[in-house]
Each structure stands twice: as structure tokens, then as C-alpha cells.
């Protein structure tokens, strides 16, 4: 469990990135910080591994104030995945994955074996092991980044807009992979994004941030979608524009689900017992004309 206690961060230039922020991030769940730039989301994330130290307030991991821990050791115990992968360009894929175990003194041979196994975990072919990052595609680099984050088998995995720089198709693929890994590995994941769809897809707990690290709303995706706390949240999740409202239209005897802009979002399966289908089945049969139209509810109901 990670707990922020009235955390404030003011940068030397006077910018107040985060003010009096308090929140509990439950263990073995994914918490997503979502907000536009200037919302302090990355600052909040970086405070967990002491890349940024708060001006006031404390952060505790499982009851231990992290200000009392040595930054370098703390960072070696927490997985970190960033945008543009942040891989070391002069090390091969397998050595990049083994970076932190090697820093922690794991014997080279063992570190390499573990790293190869991790390539399997993140869905990369072992034949890529001895290539350099520049020889991989953006999506592959990002997978290596995730593997590196997992290399010391950390309890906590920090992800700073990890899929921000890959194209939409690869991003969707990586998001699904991450969901699979969440189920498989059971880590406490802290994820930062500006993409609300991504937040709803991946988050057990979603934290919507205003400028200055103020919490606009915290909740599961379905809670937020069902009851936006205010107009800011409603507009952020797109509810105010009726963007997420779906309705039926009957075409030749079968029910078609149509979104607010008249595009087809899916069909209603006729053999479903209920007249109103659960959101899950909608998303599974979505026609794809509206990306992720049913996905938010699905993310929340997953566990």
C-alpha cells in the first residue's frame, strides 16, 4: 500500500505542482493518475521512487516513510517504465532487462537467464535478446521497457505514460498485454496517462486530477462514469457531450447500438436473456467504429 499524506511539491521556480495531496493506493491494484499537462500527475508518480522529493508531507510504502530510505536502493526495488522506453542504447535487449539485477549484484549468468524468461513474459521473441534497442520497433522497445521494470520482481511498478509514443494499434496491443500481466503478476501498479480511455481500461482506481495536483474525483471507472463529481470530471470523461450515451435503433428486426454521433457501436445479441445487455457483452461485440466505446465499464467490472 502506498499512502500520500498531505503532500505538497513546490518547484524552485515557484510552480506549485501538487498541493496538500492525500490518497491511499491499495496494494495489488492499478491506480491511474489521469489529467492534462500541469496536473502534477508525473510529479506524483516520481515522488514514489524519490525522483522528486516533496516540499512537505510524507509518502509511505507499507507504513514506512520513504524519506527515511536511501533513494538508490528504493529505486532498485521499484519497477519503472517510461515513455520512449528509456532503454540504454549501448546495451543489448537482454542486458537492458538485466540492468537492475546486475546493479543489485545478481550473478551475470543468472541475470541473463531471468531476463530471457522475462522476454517470454512480455511477449517478445528470444531471438531479439542480443539486438540493440535502436534495432527494435517502438512497440518492441516498450515491451523491453516493461520487462526491465519487472526484472527485480518488484511489488510496485511505476509507469509514466509508457504507451504515449507508440501508434494507436500498437498501443491497444500493449494495453491488453498489460491487463494480462496485471492478472498474472498481481503488482501494485501506478500508471500515469493523459488518456481517459486508457485510464478507464487499465485502472482499478482512477484518480482524475485538476491543475496543481488537486483530486477532482477518485473511484472505479464505473463509479466515475455513472456519477461524475462535477462538470470538470463530466467534461473530462466526455459525459457532458453525450459522447458516451448509446441508444438502440431497430434495423430489419435486429437491435443496433448507436452512439451519440449516429455511428454504429455494436449489435445486441438476440439470444441474450436480458432486454438490456450488460455492458461487457457490448464491448466484446463492438463493431469498432467507435474506439473503446464500451470499454470503460468493462475495465471497472473486470475484477
Amino acid at each position: 500500500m502506498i499512502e500520500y499524506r498531505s503532500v505538497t511539491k513546490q518547484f524552485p521556480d515557484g510552480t506549485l505542482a501538487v498541493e496538500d495531496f492525500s490518497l491511499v493506493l491499495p496494494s495489488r491494484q492499478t491506480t491511474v493518475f489521469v489529467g492534462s499537462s500541469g496536473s502534477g500527475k508525473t510529479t506524483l508518480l516520481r515522488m514514489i521512487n524519490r525522483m522528486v522529493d516533496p516540499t512537505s508531507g510524507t509518502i509511505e510504502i507499507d507504513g514506512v516513510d520513504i524519506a527515511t530510505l536511501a533513494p538508490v536502493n528504493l529505486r532498485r526495488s521499484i519497477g519503472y517504465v517510461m515513455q520512449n522506453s528509456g532503454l540504454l542504447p549501448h546495451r543489448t535487449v537482454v542486458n537492458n532487462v538485466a540492468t537492475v539485477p546486475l546493479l543489485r549484484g545478481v550473478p551475470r549468468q543468472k541475470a541473463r537467464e531471468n531476463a530471457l524468461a522475462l522476454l517470454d513474459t512480455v511477449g517478445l521473441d528470444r531471438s531479439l535478446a542480443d539486438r540493440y534497442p535502436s534495432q527494435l520497433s517502438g512497440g518492441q522497445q516498450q515491451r523491453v521497457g516493461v520487462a526491465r521494470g519487472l526484472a527485480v520482481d518488484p511489488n510496485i511498478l511505476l509507469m509514466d505514460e509508457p504507451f504515449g509514443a507508440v501508434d494507436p494499434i500498437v498501443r491497444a496491443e500493449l494495453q491488453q498485454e498489460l491487463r494480462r500481466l496485471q492478472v498474472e503478476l498481481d503488482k501494485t501498479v501506478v500508471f500515469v496517462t493523459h488518456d481517459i480511455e486508457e485510464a478507464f481500461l487499465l485502472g482499478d482506481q482512477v484518480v482524475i486530477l485538476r491543475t496543481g495536483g488537486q483530486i477532482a474525483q477518485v473511484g472505479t471507472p464505473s463509479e466515475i462514469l455513472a456519477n461524475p463529481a462535477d462538470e470538470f470530471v463530466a467534461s473530462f470523461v466526455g459525459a457532458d457531450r453525450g459522447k458516451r450515451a448509446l441508444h438502440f435503433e431497430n434495423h430489419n428486426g435486429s437491435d443496433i447500438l448507436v452512439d451519440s454521433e449516429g455511428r454504429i457501436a455494436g449489435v445486441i445479441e438476440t439470444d441474450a436473456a436480458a432486454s438490456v445487455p450488460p455492458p461487457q457483452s457490448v464491448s466484446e461485440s463492438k463493431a469498432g467504429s467507435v474506439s473503446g466505446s464500451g470499454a470503460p465499464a468493462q475495465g471497472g467490472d473486470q475484477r
Partner: protein
Amino acid sequence: MNWVWSNLDLIWDRTLDHLVLSVPPIILSFLIALPLGWLANRYRISRGIILTAGGLLYAIPSFPLFVVLPLIVGISIRSPLNLIIALTLYGIALLVRVVADGLASVDADTRQSATAVGFSTWSAFWQVDLPLAGPVLLAGLRVVAVSTVSLATVGAVIGVQSLGSLFTDGFQRGIQEEIITGIVLSVALALFFDWALVMLGRLAMPWTRRGSRKTRSPGGPAVQSEPDLVRTATR
């Protein structure tokens, strides 16, 4: 060529002298420039001071330096050590800036991610900054190697034996072959050092050899070309 055949021993000795004079300065100046360049890159104030000092040092003409240095250090003007120290100073003057620029050329994102995964300042310097500054350092070292080999010949003027002694001696005694031998061997030695450094660089920096198949715009969002998508899909 008769002169060459009958003086092979002399030529070999002068070549060895030349190596003794030029190899230590190249290595020493690099080792000394490393911490200085790091310091220059680390703090704004030290950058100004160190780089200006380096520039001034290089502006000192070699001959006066050879004369003044023994007075400061307390050695004979004809001691090879005199020349080695002078050449080391010139090397440092050139390399400090190279090291500072090389370290500054390391991608900020890469540095930050190294810190984020748990590199200490010390381990990041040796395992991340230094190797990534490698190509710039190598370019600087090549310049220093060549300039040191050519500067070492000047030692002949103050009586320190080197390949330069072949052309001072040749001039005095009017032996053209000796002069040419001195020049050709100096150039050959410089070229050899340059080649050796390039080879060393290839061994030490294998990642610069392999062709990068794709150029990623740093920090730019979502630029992935079509072929990449295809590759991702087929693998």
C-alpha cells in the same frame, strides 16, 4: 635508400623514443581530462573556469613551454619527462572540452531513466554517461593522438630524442634521406595511432557499428513508420 638500410638500428631507436614520448601523454591527458571534463559539465561555474583555462593552456606556444616547464618542475630541459609533461598539458587542454561536450551529448531521457531504475551517480557515470559519450571522446582522442605524435617531434629542437631528431640531424648533416625518413615515419606513426584508436572504438562500442534501422524522433509522439508495424506483426 642506402642510408636507411645502414641506419635501421638508429631509426628503430628513434621510433621507440617517439613512442615513449607520445603514448604516455595521450593516456595521461585522457585520464586527467576525464574528471576535469566531468566537473566542467556538472556545474555552470566550473564549466567557465575549466574550459577557459584549457583554452589558455593550449594557446601557450610549445617552445616557451619547454623552456619554462623545467624551471617550474625542477627537471632538466633535455629530460624526456619535460616533453611528456608538456604534451600531456596540451592533450588535457584539448580533451577537457571534448569530455565536457561528450558528457553533455548524452540524451537527457536516457540519463533520467538510468537514475529512475537505480543507478547511483558513480555507476551512472561509468556505465551510462561514459560509454554513451564514447563516440565524441573517441573523435577527440584521435585529434589528440595525431597532434601529440607531431608535437613530439619538436622535442628534437631542445635535444630530446625522437623521430624529429632524424630531420634536425638530417638538416645539419645534409642527409636528405634521413629528413624524409623522419617525416614519413612521423606521419606513419600518427596514422597508426589513429587507426588503432578507431579499432579500439569498434571493440569498445559495438552498438555504434550495427546499423540502426530506424530513426526515432526524440520525444516526438507516435511516429512509427509502416514497415515497423509490419515487422511487429510478423514477429
